[in-house]
């Protein structure tokens, strides 16, 4: 519990840092941060609270969603290497949004786009799982199917060249540059819903770690637990991917870091990988816009750059067993 609070405190510190630093220098920035309700009309206030505040909130919500998504992916497939980009969930979500946008049915940033993304995500994840017949083949098939779906996304984008369908870079590395305050109203409720569902599923994911037969032997259905997880996983990934593109690696790393720090119980992993995911993505976002201003570095690259050493360090400090 204490470690969770430390992580939450770090998240708070990172949020305040994110408000204070950015591409432009804001005069009297600390005063604006600590008195958020005065002088709300000024340009400085808008930069700090609307621009940066929105990005910070989005990074926290997306990071938490991806952390929980990774927990569900690993728990439901009983595979430590599973994550949305490997299971095809992310690529499926991207293709779903793209099809929705190109057929002029939805636009990015809408609930409809999330729905298209969720359908694509669920379809591809289910396809990958049904094609696989072992832990190793799940990963191999997943990488293969993801590659096909990602290629389709890239080829479609090249062929149609429509700015409202976003760029290949967006669908490959993700970006917070175009996040709007209204997006938070989509992200927040879906994260809450996904987190509650994951919390409810978590004890059954513990049981699933003993293998499908052990689950059946006590009268529960492993496939049902798995598909319920896939649905929640798809919704969480859909919300993130449709608004900020594909950010890989985070969903793999966050649950592992959470397990090493807080133990393997899935309820704890759901909660703590959400905090870890939010923290890593937030720090990555701050770095992405403050390292070489006014340019913005791709968020996906910085997530890997910051997340990977943390993952390796925690694994190295632990014993030589998976947690």
């Amino acid at each position, binding site marked *: 519990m204490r470690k969770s609070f430390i992580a939450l405190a770090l998240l708070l510190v990172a949020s305040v840092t994110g408000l204070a630093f950015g591409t432009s220098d804001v005069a009297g920035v600390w005063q604006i941060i600590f008195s958020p309700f005065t002088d709300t009309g000024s340009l400085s206030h808008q930069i700090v609270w609307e621009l940066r505040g929105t990005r910070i909130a989005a990074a926290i919500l997306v990071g938490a969603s991806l952390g929980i998504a990774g927990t569900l992916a690993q728990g439901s497939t009983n595979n430590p290497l599973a994550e949305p980009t490997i299971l095809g969930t992310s690529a499926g979500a991207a293709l779903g949004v793209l099809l929705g946008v190109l057929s002029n049915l939805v636009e990015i940033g809408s609930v409809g786009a999330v729905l298209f993304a969720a359908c694509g995500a669920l379809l591809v994840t289910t396809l990958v799982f049904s094609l696989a017949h072992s832990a190793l083949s799940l990963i191999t098939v997943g990488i293969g199917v993801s590659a096909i779906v990602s290629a389709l996304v890239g080829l479609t984008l090249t062929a149609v060249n429509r700015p409202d369908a976003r760029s290949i870079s967006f669908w490959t590395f993700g970006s917070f540059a175009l996040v709007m305050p209204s997006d938070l109203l989509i992200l927040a409720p879906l994260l809450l819903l996904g987190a509650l569902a994951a919390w409810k599923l978590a004890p059954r994911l513990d*049981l699933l770690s003993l293998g499908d037969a052990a689950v059946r032997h006590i009268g529960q259905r492993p496939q049902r637990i798995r598909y319920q997880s896939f649905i929640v996983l798809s919704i969480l990934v859909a919300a993130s991917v449709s608004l900020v593109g594909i950010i890989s690696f985070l969903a793999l790393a966050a649950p592992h870091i959470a397990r090493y720090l807080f133990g*393997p*119980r899935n309820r704890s992993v759901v909660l703590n990988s959400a905090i870890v995911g939010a923290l890593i993505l937030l720090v990555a976002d701050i770095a992405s816009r403050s390292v070489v201003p006014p340019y913005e570095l791709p968020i996906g690259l910085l997530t890997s750059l910051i997340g990977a050493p943390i993952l390796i360090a925690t694994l190295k400090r632990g014993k030589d067993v*998976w947690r």
Partner: protein
Amino acid sequence: MIEIKGLTVVRGKRIVVDNFSATIALASITAITGPNGCGKSTLAQAIAGDLKYQSGQITIAGRELQTITLEEQAELRSVVEQNRNYWLSFTAREVIAMGQSKANLARMEGVMQRLQIAEYADQSVTTLSGGQAQRIDLARALIRDTPIYIFDEPLSAQDSQSKVRVIEEFKAMRSAGKTLIVIAHSDRESLSWCDQIIDFTHH
């Protein structure tokens, strides 16, 4: 009573169980023996309801197994599988408790004492020896209260002292009216505690 009639199980293109019949009495211990790869684990899985069989019948208390729902099967039998690998560092106690009902949890401490798990109950399962891990699976089954128990090689990793203890546990279960099916590849002499020994070599 468990009645197996003309059971045939095909895996891939291989006939693993070929026209096998047997009767297992209530409140008895039946050993199924045979060399590696003779199909005795497959037979155990079929009786446990884990795989479909192509022809033949398995009836439990007069009901055909394949018509019994998963939930009802769970009320009828407990199963101990062979060789489990753990990749998450749950404690032994946590693993035994996973998915168990309140009534089962109430029996947990007693079973852990009798199987001598108590001393490593709070240790991570990833650090246990094969024998210790095997007793955790035994405990998961033994805290459940079902009329039938199916054990796939429950003694394979136990030292002679634990073997004696587990066998005593099995005998006590039989006295309490339970029906036990034990897969083993030991010789007849060491299975004197069983009521029936089925040699599966030629099936």
